[in-house]
């Protein structure tokens, strides 16, 4: 793992200068803003009636988030689903752009271990995804305060923070294997397509009752059940994450790189 600091510098510099973090931060704000808007609509029946279907949806969301604990639980689920897609977008850019922009070849015949190059990329993905989760959480807190949700206390917020943090870690862990799809697909499309397919499969698997054994269902179930999952679920997420990272490494090391 020599030269990891140099590789981190490279990855962070590319990310910061690309303005993609700014766009992802703005994108992540849509989630808390959207939820707050729906709760606001449901609290104002005259607006709700005028909006028709949106009003009905707003009432449904408001029913799920009648107070701070329920609201923070809802945010955990948003991180598990919406955050997951956002994390895949970040992974697709960090890994897929080397293929799409043709810059990969400059990293191949160099006196640096591929493992260092890849580890730096994974670390930046994790930092960036965690930062986006924090943005979503803080925006959610501000919105919750603005719409004056009842039942808030330091303990509730702290509990909600822990739930969000663990859900985000699980979602990031479940998202990291998509670096393999970005590498094999040599761009952005395959990981994004695979992410959508995974979310669809997650719904089916959860309905079938096997969600706790499906790594991509675990973050959502964790947020829903507030941690009441068997230990094997966490191990499955961890092993999936490690398996995806190892597969990505092996692909970068042994696959023919024609671009």
């Amino acid at each position, binding site marked *: 793992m020599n030269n990891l600091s140099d590789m981190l510098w490279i990855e962070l510099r590319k990310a910061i200068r690309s303005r993609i973090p700014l766009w992802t931060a703005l994108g992540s704000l849509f989630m808390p803003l959207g939820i707050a808007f729906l709760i606001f609509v449901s609290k104002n029946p005259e607006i709700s009636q005028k909006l028709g279907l949106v009003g009905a949806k707003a009432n449904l969301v408001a029913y799920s988030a009648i107070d701070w604990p329920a609201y923070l639980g809802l945010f955990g689920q948003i991180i598990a689903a919406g955050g997951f897609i956002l994390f895949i977008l970040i992974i697709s850019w960090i890994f897929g752009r080397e293929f799409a922009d043709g810059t990969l070849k400059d990293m191949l015949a160099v006196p640096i271990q591929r493992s260092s190059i890849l580890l730096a990329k994974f670390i930046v993905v994790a930092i960036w995804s965690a930062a986006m989760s924090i943005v979503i959480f803080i925006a959610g807190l501000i919105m919750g305060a603005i719409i004056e949700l009842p039942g808030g206390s330091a303990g509730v917020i702290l509990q909600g923070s822990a739930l969000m943090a663990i859900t985000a870690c699980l979602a990031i862990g479940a998202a990291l294997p998509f670096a393999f799809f970005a590498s094999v697909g040599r761009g952005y499309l395959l990981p994004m397509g695979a992410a959508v397919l995974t979310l669809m499969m997650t719904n089916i698997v959860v309905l079938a009752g096997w969600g706790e054994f499906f790594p991509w269902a675990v973050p959502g179930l964790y947020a829903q059940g507030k941690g009441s999952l068997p230990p094997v679920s966490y191990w499955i997420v961890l092993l999936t994450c490690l398996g995806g990272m190892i597969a990505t490494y092996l692909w970068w090391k042994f696959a*023919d790189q024609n671009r």
Partner: protein
Amino acid sequence: MNLSIETVDLGKTYGDVRAVEHLSIQVAEGEIYAFLGLNGAGKTTTIRMLLGMIKPTTGFARVLQTRVRPGSRDPWESVGYLVEVPHSYPELTVYENLEVARRLHPGTPREAVSRMIERMSLVPDADRRAGNLSQGNAQRLGLAKALLHNPKLLFLDEPANGLDPAGIVEIRELLLELAHKQGVTVFMSSHILAEVSRLAQRIAVIHKGHLLQELNIDELERNRRRRLLLRVRDVEAANRALVAAGQPAEILQDGTIQLKNAASVEHPDDINCLLVKAGSPPTRLMVEEEDLEQYFLRLVGLNRGMQNE
């Protein structure tokens, strides 16, 4: 002789497509070796195999006495390369792109970046985003990345691409200086024979994945076809005189007499005297030499060579 590059029966197959087959070459230290071929001949595939980016289907390669293996860290410390289009990170400036290249080659001093920017005449564009560079300057940036860490061996795929005539001369002089003064080995690919003949000491011609010919620059000169062309008023009389003097002449469709033997080509004055004495003095006498492009196309079987031959 120290070899910088050696390939033994190197080959790469993609399904039914044989991109490169049975390639065995040796490149000595300090040599400028050119790999010449049409688009799709297998030049880039070979360079990628030499750089460990793709695995050969058969054979193996050694670079700087180290056997090339996929994903290995050796021997890339002393190797610089520019493969195909010189892509850089578009959001980073020229300076930052070179800083990235510097960090990918540990031990390269920080000052090397500024030095290389000056050497490649990129000072006015140093703070410009690479995505906004002209094609020529993007090529210069690609070359700067390849040269930044003072490599002993350079792989350059079409190094003159996108450069204007002044840039081509500048890069040619730079490569000649690197090879002759610093002993850097240059392995370059091109599809322009005239350009590589000005640079390379040895040329390998590759076509459809096969090595057709490997020759020194003086051999290339010798192999190029030459002929003596004559125009006379009485073609039949002139031809009789030439045949009688033992000169194997050919009459072309437009009535021009063609002589291909070395004696005629090297001493056209003797042929002139012969015809004057025979009463058929030439009205036109010209030694024509096959140009490099014609020679190359003849070699790869796409052209018979000189016009009317």
